[in-house]
């Protein structure tokens, strides 16, 4: 192994072609000097090397794992891995991200990134250990769920400290909303990253490393670590995530509590307090099943409850999972049974299904059933009634295995609505071709951030909830108003790029508001670890490069423009029905004003939404500008 010149990095990028079985390596430094790490390096490689004519389904599609440049060090909460690909939903930028213990193990094995191309003839898994790589027969794990896969590979390879990232039955069967899963209960969801892995016949990556990560200036770095830990310990929001997340978003004292529900497939954006209390209340809801908290690598918060159900029809259900996804999913399907919610969440992880994608597809089908467009016969004998836990669990199974109605739904809600027609397109909530689970109408900064997300209707680019929790300091804005939303989303999209570059979890940073980690903390941690002189302004500029790499990929590969940055039609035409935000909807005129301002801030063309020569040149992305100019998609 070559020791990295930069601190923080493992030093090498691994390239594996599953078709030719060719394996090679290159130095990370060549990319790190411009893009530092994680998602930003992934985005650069994807944009530079993929031919826009190559479709997502082509074996030449790339699947790139990128570990943040601070992962493996004591930088608190830096454990995350970004996965980039060409999205099966859109042919645009596909991106997803997980925590857990896989990323640091990959660095201790000597690699910062793994770039996978080609398609294997038979199912395989990658075994990466201390600088060595083997492509191994996956016959023992193909067909298995994700938990079994981890267990079998650890036994087969004889080491229980091996970390595994795998797909489940859903990814093997080409279900669009498939995840790449790793423990403890962490899913890289969205963008069909599990679909791409399954199409390559790659069941899993197993990794074990006995190496180390060094930092350039140890004393300065440890001082920054100590300050960072103190800030996280003092942050009420960071500690709220530890208490099982629910308090931060779903109980009445949270500033965000009235904004995050889209009951019955988004027919409303208000869920009555009795239902919330039943699902997430500390006494009656999901917390009553908590046995302990488990954590990702190096995380001073620990947000993952291990739950066990000891009575009732879900008796025997146990495992580690993440409650907030359950809450989002549950409101979408109007389910207030906490035991069923824990059951389906753990089942999603085992099946390798994404909760946001799955709940959006299921909720669309439930609404079709309610409105008489799908019958019991169409649904394999199931009554798709809102809040019916048994029906939801049965539908998940069908979706993962593409059985009956599950096969009909498996390519995402846009495709399902196209096949069924009869007006069902109106309640098919998707952006840029991808199912979108989030609410849009009450919280303007959330809706806008989700709609402009380059990865299609997702909340992990620029979405902001409430000024106490997310967004920049010192800017005046409020969740229910349009004012200054573009500015807040512009900042948030860059801050999140930095978090993905370094590998930070949002719960130690920009989703924990005042007192938790800020860009100034990231700057000091990255400067002292990597051994490069950075000031906050530099880091934000590198983040803008990352934002523009994603924009350019979408412009070049998917042909996205301004028309792709609006919310689903339902949310513009149908107002919220009840609660404090009744009557609220996404106003077209105000949306246009927000888009104009957001494009202006980013240096993008207002009419088309495309990047501009000037904007890209200022960021040192002239080579990207030249490619866009060549195909006439640059202003």
């Amino acid at each position, binding site marked *: 192994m070559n020791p990295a010149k930069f601190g923080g990095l493992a030093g090498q990028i691994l390239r594996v072609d599953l078709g030719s079985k060719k394996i090679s390596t290159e130095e990370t430094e060549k990319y790190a000097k411009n893009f530092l790490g994680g998602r930003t390096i992934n985005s650069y490689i994807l944009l530079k090397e993929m031919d826009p004519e190559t479709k997502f389904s082509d074996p030449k599609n790339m699947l790139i794992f990128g570990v943040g440049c601070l992962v*493996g060090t004591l930088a608190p909460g830096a454990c995350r891995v970004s996965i980039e690909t060409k999205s099966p939903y859109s042919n645009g930028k596909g991106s997803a991200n997980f925590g857990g213990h896989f990323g640091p193990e990959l660095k201790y094995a000597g690699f910062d990134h793994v770039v996978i191309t080609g398609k294997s003839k038979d199912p395989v898994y990658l075994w990466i250990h201390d600088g060595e790589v083997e492509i191994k027969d996956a016959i023992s794990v193909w067909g298995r769920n994700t938990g079994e896969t981890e267990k079998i590979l650890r036994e087969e390879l004889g080491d229980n400290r091996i970390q595994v990232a795998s797909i489940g039955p859903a990814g093997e069967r080409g279900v669009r909303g498939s995840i790449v899963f790793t423990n403890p*209960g962490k899913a890289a969801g969205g963008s069909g990253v599990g679909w791409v892995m399954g199409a390559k016949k790659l069941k899993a990556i197993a990794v074990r490393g006995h190496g*180390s*990560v060094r930092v350039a200036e140890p004393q300065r770095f440890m001082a920054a670590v100590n300050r960072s830990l103190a800030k996280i310990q003092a942050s009420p929001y960071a500690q709220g995530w530890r208490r099982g997340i629910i308090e931060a978003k779903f109980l009445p004292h949270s500033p965000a509590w009235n904004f995050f529900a889209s009951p019955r497939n988004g027919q409303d954006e208000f869920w009555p307090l009795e239902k919330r209390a039943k699902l997430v209340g500390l006494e009656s809801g999901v917390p009553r099943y908590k046995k*302990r908290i488990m*954590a990702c690598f190096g995380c001073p918060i*620990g947000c993952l409850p291990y739950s066990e159900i000891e009575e009732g029809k879900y008796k025997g259900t*146990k*495992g*580690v999972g993440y409650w907030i996804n359950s809450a989002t999913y549950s409101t979408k399907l109007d389910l207030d049974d906490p035991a069923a919610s824990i059951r389906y969440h753990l089942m999603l992880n085992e099946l390798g299904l994404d909760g946001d994608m799955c709940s959006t597809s299921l909720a669309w089908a439930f609404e079709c059933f309610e409105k008489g467009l799908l019958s019991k016969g169409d649904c394999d004998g199931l009554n798709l009634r809102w809040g019916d836990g048994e029906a939801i669990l049965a539908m998940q199974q069908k979706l993962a295995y593409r059985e009956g109605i599950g096969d009909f739904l498996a390519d995402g809600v846009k495709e399902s609505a196209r096949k069924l027609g009869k007006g069902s397109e109106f309640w098919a909530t998707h952006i840029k071709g991808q199912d979108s689970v989030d609410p849009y109408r009450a919280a303007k900064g959330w809706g806008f951030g989700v709609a402009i997300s380059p990865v299609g209707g997702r909340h992990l680019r620029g979405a902001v909830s409430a000024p106490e929790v997310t967004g920049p300091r010192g800017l005046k804005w409020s969740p229910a108003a349009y004012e200054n939303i573009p500015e807040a989303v512009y900042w948030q999209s860059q801050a999140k790029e930095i978090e993905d570059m370094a590998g930070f979890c949002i719960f130690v940073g920009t989703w924990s508001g005042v007192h938790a980690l800020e860009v100034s903390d990231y700057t000091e941690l990255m400067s002292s670890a990597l051994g490069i002189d950075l000031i906050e302004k530099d880091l934000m500029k590198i983040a803008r490069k990352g934002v523009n790499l994603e924009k350019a990929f979408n412009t070049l590969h998917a042909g996205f423009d301004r028309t792709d940055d609006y919310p689903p039609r339902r949310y513009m035409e149908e107002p919220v029905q009840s609660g404090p935000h009744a009557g609220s909807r996404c106003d077209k005129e105000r949306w246009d004003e927000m888009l104009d301002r957001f494009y202006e801030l980013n240096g993008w063309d207002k009419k088309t939404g495309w990047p501009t020569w000037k904007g890209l040149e200022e960021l040192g992305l002239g080579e990207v500008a030249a490619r866009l100019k060549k195909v006439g998609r640059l202003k």
Partner: protein
Amino acid sequence: MELVLNSGACNGCRICELACSFHHQGVFAPEYSSLKVSNDYREGKIHLSLEATCDFCLQESQPMCVQYCVTGALKKGRENEPS
């Protein structure tokens, strides 16, 4: 001196492994850590173990693992000794 390991209070974050390896080698590497954390996510069990390489960080005010532990799973002292 001894370390009291309380696996029941641990959340499995392995910050102690990082702090310990930094103490021994000045780098971050669970392999060099005297403390080892084993996570069993299927059963919800965590096991802490201490290897003979532990020197209790005698030159520090507190062992590094204790300093950095956020859950209270690691404490300085003898087993059954009131803290």
